[in-house]
């Protein structure tokens, strides 16, 4: 098959699965998940074929796979949409396909396929377990299958479709379409258990917050289109277009290219949960865990960073290579600030998934900061390694929760929160596969030196920041890296090490193969993917393995970016912060028995710097109050309708005034009635002469004749 045809087809299987499940197979769980996982597998295979073929093309950056069709007429030309796989696209497609496929597979086990239906389970709430009687007549409570099992796979399929569409798009419009479809799916999936008010609120919050960013992005797209007349990447990224944009002044001292890039970036701030639009991501943990993995690693938040990487030529169009432009400074600041800010919050969280949620925000901040200082390849590299280890960590945490739920069902004590790390402990013995893979993921996240992928990508960002003299970014990211290692080790220690702190943790169980296989596969990549991007300048190891990643992805750009000079300072820094953070985390939490001994339960951090409260106080409540009281009650009902209603009485008042004071006395009385009365009176007086006698009439006529004749004579003729 033609490669371009294949690329067109990649997004379709999950979409088809969505429609098939919704329309036909939603009653059959087995059929539904077979279709969905099968569709994910098809897209996976297609993506891998495309990826391998892309590797075989020389100068893929200049001659990418592309194809386009007419879609929408705009005046005398057509708006074209199409697909594009260049080196960046191929690299992203690779990790997206693997993680999505693994998440689909994992979901089968996570939603307890093959287990009986629950005793009291209802749609819209998580399953609560089913009672079964074994051959000896003993009753056991076992996990029950998700009541909306098929629906979950349908939504997941739509989600995958959105992401694939976004990745293969050759233009901003279809990228935006995929982007928004994912927004919708996150809404549907975060609110999957819609019977829970918290899930429902989280879903709306996620959709609304990201939409705030999306609108700015939409404006950026409109601005770009009106400035260049195209939204196709390869048409925008020509030298003339970029130069024209970079030399057009826009507002606030920015150039047109800078302003457009900033507007597009705000979309990413929403989607990739950067400060100040980060508030939705932690709440998004309300969704089932595979969804968290989907959102946090494979799709949504990665899409945000991907968009900035994609638009990098635009972002740097007016950059001279040294001093950051206004837009780049903003990007770098938001990224670095978010990286640190979120890392501090993560230290104080006790929910196993929330820790990971904040770590995602923090790691995305890393990538954004890297882009802000112009480190294109490093950002792309970290995006991919992060996707692997973060998907691994989320699926691992889901596995832990699943094991804990087992324990909860065993003891029957439903007040124990299976996500609270202080209810865990010692799980390494009960869940060995989960433990080892989680350990790998955690170490990769912390940047454990040399063996993990996270080390190589994070080190490259730090080296770049240092090498190009962005010291503030360098220091901030280094501190954030330290905190990352610290809270990751805290998490591992509290969850897996030591002794079980609750009865439930003692009865936790390893999860089925559908859940552990994805963990193993992802753990493999969380280690090995780092080796494709080892800098040539790295002591000893550099040059042993060619720096394939830099070479390959770097060629997406017209000018392949230079890797910075090697320096020991960033390398030692990343060694110290990673190992130091891990060691300190272990030492601090090794003997902590309960939450009261945790020194970092600082209210400010636990409450996430009160951002939710502040936004509620500053925006949400005033907005509703304003809409209801000022706009609706005052303006609409008061002023506008008041004016109208006043118009009625005014007309009526004028009318009745006219009637009472003009019509009745003047017209009716004086003129109408008056003339009638006068006529009547006159008639009455005249009646006397109407006698009916001919002689009198003749007499009267004669008298009249004489009087008129005399008058005529006297006045006319004599004069």
């Amino acid at each position: 098959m033609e490669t371009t045809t294949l690329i067109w087809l990649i997004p379709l299987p999950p979409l088809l699965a969505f429609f098939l499940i919704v329309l036909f197979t939603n009653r059959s769980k087995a059929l539904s998940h077979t279709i969905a996982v099968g569709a994910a597998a098809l897209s996976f295979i297609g993506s891998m074929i495309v990826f391998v073929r892309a590797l075989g093309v020389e100068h893929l950056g200049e001659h990418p796979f592309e194809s386009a069709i007419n879609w929408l007429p705009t005046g005398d030309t057509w708006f074209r949409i199409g697909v594009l796989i260049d080196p960046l696209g191929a690299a992203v497609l690779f990790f997206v396909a693997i993680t999505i496929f693994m998440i689909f597979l994992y979901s089968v086990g996570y939603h307890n396929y093959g287990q009986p239906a629950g005793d009291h389970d209802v749609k819209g709430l998580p399953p609560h377990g089913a009672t079964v009687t074994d051959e000896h007549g003993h009753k056991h409570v076992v996990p029950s299958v998700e009541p909306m099992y098929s629906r979950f796979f349908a939504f997941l399929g739509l989600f995958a479709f959105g992401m694939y569409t976004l990745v293969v798009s050759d233009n901003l419009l279809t990228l935006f379409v995929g982007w928004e479809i994912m927004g919708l799916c996150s809404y549907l999936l975060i609110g999957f258990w819609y019977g829970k008010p918290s899930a429902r609120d989280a879903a709306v919050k996620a959709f609304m917050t990201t939409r705030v960013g999306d609108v700015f992005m939409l404006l950026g797209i409109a601005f770009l289109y009106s400035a260049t007349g195209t939204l196709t990447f390869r048409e925008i990224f020509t030298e003339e277009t970029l130069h024209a944009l970079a030399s057009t002044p826009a507002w606030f001292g920015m150039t047109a290219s800078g302003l457009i890039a900033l507007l597009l970036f705000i979309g990413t701030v929403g989607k990739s949960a950067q400060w100040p639009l980060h508030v939705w991501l932690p709440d998004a943990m309300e969704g089932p865990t595979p969804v968290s993995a989907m959102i946090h690693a494979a799709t949504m938040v990665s899409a945000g960073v991907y968009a900035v990487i994609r638009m990098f030529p635009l972002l740097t169009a007016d950059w001279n290579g040294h001093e950051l432009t206004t837009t780049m400074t903003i990007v770098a600041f938001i990224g670095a600030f978010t990286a640190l800010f979120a890392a501090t919050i993560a230290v104080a969280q006790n929910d196993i998934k929330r820790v990971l949620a904040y770590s995602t925000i923090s790691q995305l901040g890393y990538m954004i900061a890297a882009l802000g200082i112009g480190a294109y390849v490093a950002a792309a590299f970290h995006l991919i390694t992060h996707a692997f280890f973060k998907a691994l960590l989320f699926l691992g945490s889901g596995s832990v929760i699943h094991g804990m739920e087992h324990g909860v069902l065993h003891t029957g004590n439903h007040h124990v929160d299976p996500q609270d790390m202080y209810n865990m402990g010692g799980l390494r013995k009960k869940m060995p596969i989960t433990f080892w893979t989680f350990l790998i993921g955690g170490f990769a996240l912390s940047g454990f030196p040399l063996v993990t992928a996270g080390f190589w990508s994070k080190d490259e960002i730090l080296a770049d920041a240092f090498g190009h003299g962005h010291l503030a970014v360098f220091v901030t990211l280094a501190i954030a890296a330290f905190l990352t290692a610290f809270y990751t080790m805290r998490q591992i220690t509290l969850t897996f090490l030591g002794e079980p702190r609750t009865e439930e943790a003692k009865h936790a169980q390893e999860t089925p193969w559908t859940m552990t296989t994805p963990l193993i596969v992802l753990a493999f990549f969380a280690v090995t993917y780092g080796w494709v991007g080892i800098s040539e300048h790295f002591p000893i190891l550099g040059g042993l393995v060619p720096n394939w990643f830099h070479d390959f992805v770097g060629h997406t750009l017209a000018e392949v970016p230079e890797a910075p000079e090697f320096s020991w300072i960033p390398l030692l820094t990343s060694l110290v912060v990673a190992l130091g953070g891990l060691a300190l985390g272990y030492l601090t939490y090794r003997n902590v028995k309960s939450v009261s001994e945790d020194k970092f339960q600082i209210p400010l951090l636990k409450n996430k710097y009160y951002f939710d409260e502040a936004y509620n106080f500053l925006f949400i409540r005033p907005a509703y109050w304003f809409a209801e009281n000022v706009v609706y009650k005052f303006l609409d009902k008061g002023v506008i309708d008041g004016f109208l209603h006043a118009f009625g009485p005014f007309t009526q008042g004028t009318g009745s005034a006219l009637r009472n004071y003009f019509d009745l006395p003047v017209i009716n009385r004086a003129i109408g009635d008056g003339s009638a009365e006068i006529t009547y009176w006159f008639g009455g007086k005249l009646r006397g002469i109407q006698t009916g006698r001919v002689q009198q009439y003749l007499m009267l006529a004669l008298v009249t004749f004489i009087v008129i004749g005399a008058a005529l004579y006297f006045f006319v003729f004599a004069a």
Partner: protein
Amino acid sequence: MEFLLQPLTLLTFFPLLGVLLILFINAEAKNAIRWVALATSLITFGISLWVLAMFDASNVNLQLVARYDWITVAGWNIQYFLGIDGLSILLVLLTAFLTPISILSTWTAVEERVKDFMIFFLLLEVGMTGVFLAQDLFLFYIFWEFTLVPMYFLIGIWGGPRRIYAAIKFFLYTMAGSILMLLAILWLGIYGGTFSVPDLVALGNIPANIQWWLFLAFTAAFAIKVPMWPLHSWLPDAHVEAPTAGSVILAGVLLKMGTYGFVRFNLPLFPEAAVRAAPWIALLATIGILYGAMVSYAQADVKKLVAYSSVSHLGFVMLGLFAMNPQGIAGGILQMINHGLSTGALFLLVGMIYEQTHTREIKVYGGLWKITPVFGSIMLIVSLSSMGLPGLNGFVGEFTILLGAFGSQAIGNTAYAIASALGVIMAAVYILYMFQKMFLGPQGEIVDEVKKHGHGLRDLNWREIVTVVPLLIFIFWIGLYPKPFFALMAPAVEHLVGMLPIP
């Protein structure tokens, strides 16, 4: 006979045949009346498809013209003049499409005076089709005013508790605007010696200051109909009180008569004045977008929420039209269709649940998705379409309008495009708020309330599904592949833009 067999004449007046038949049916034979009305409207829809088949999109002139002298007295030359072009074809199709759907929606909802209802409804269709086809100002005015009468009765007889207030407000408000338009029409008739729109456009040359007053007079009529802020306040009352089918037609078609009027008359007849007014109209449109969205958010009554959202959506249409470039106008026309489909569907769905619960208060609902999954899913799709989610129809319209407004020389300021983009966020706010309160979360009190009086809430039945599915098809079609719809109007829009003296 030749006169009657003109395709456009037939399309306009065919519903009268149904009216005639219904007159002979016993008022108690309700189902017979319904079937006759439905059949009539379906045949009318068939005729509209026939017209579509004969329509040539590449021709920018009026097509399938039916033109006869009608009243020629003392230098007045009033003609019976129907014609169709790329600017009106979609709206004509929309009218013929929505009428049978609305009639189907009344099957069980209207039980009283079915005969009168159907007669009024078919008469309404005659008026609406006539408005979109008439090319003689006088004839247009007659159709325009004629639509008021059946609508007045539909609201006034079959409406909710405050129906009289709403009906009178609706009637007086629109009437007031129309009077000014009538004066302007008379002036034009005397000035040009003809009422024919193409002739008047060709004549052109109206002095600038007079153009300005004429433009304002036409605007008065159309702006009330659209309705543009701040002339919108008749709309929520009319919508809330109108029966479901009335709301569907009101939102779907009647409002479009206003926006259509701008495209058909204000732009080509008074081009200089229109260009001069563009920034002001854009300002009002933008205020309407934001204002309508905000007020929607504050509503406790779901039908009112949808009604105010129309103010917001129609603001987008106006913004697009007065961007005065191909994207803006084409987007505006497409958005008229989109709004007819999405808001029409929303009113249908709200009507369907109202029929069971007899309340429209949002707060008594909750958790409906679990109880009525089909209803919930369709509602979700329609809501998303209304808030402009990519992949569904609303996005295509809003996006092209934004592109148009952003690059518009006539408006001359991107601030309007930026501010109106905020309306996109706010649309998500009120729509999701509604969906969240009514369909997600714990079960609302109304569910038990309904159970007390019978067998509880039921999901959509087959008739109801058949009623909304055609709308859904177009919601997806336009969202995924809008090309055929744009292709129908693109040459006519280009031609129109060519006539405007944009600086």
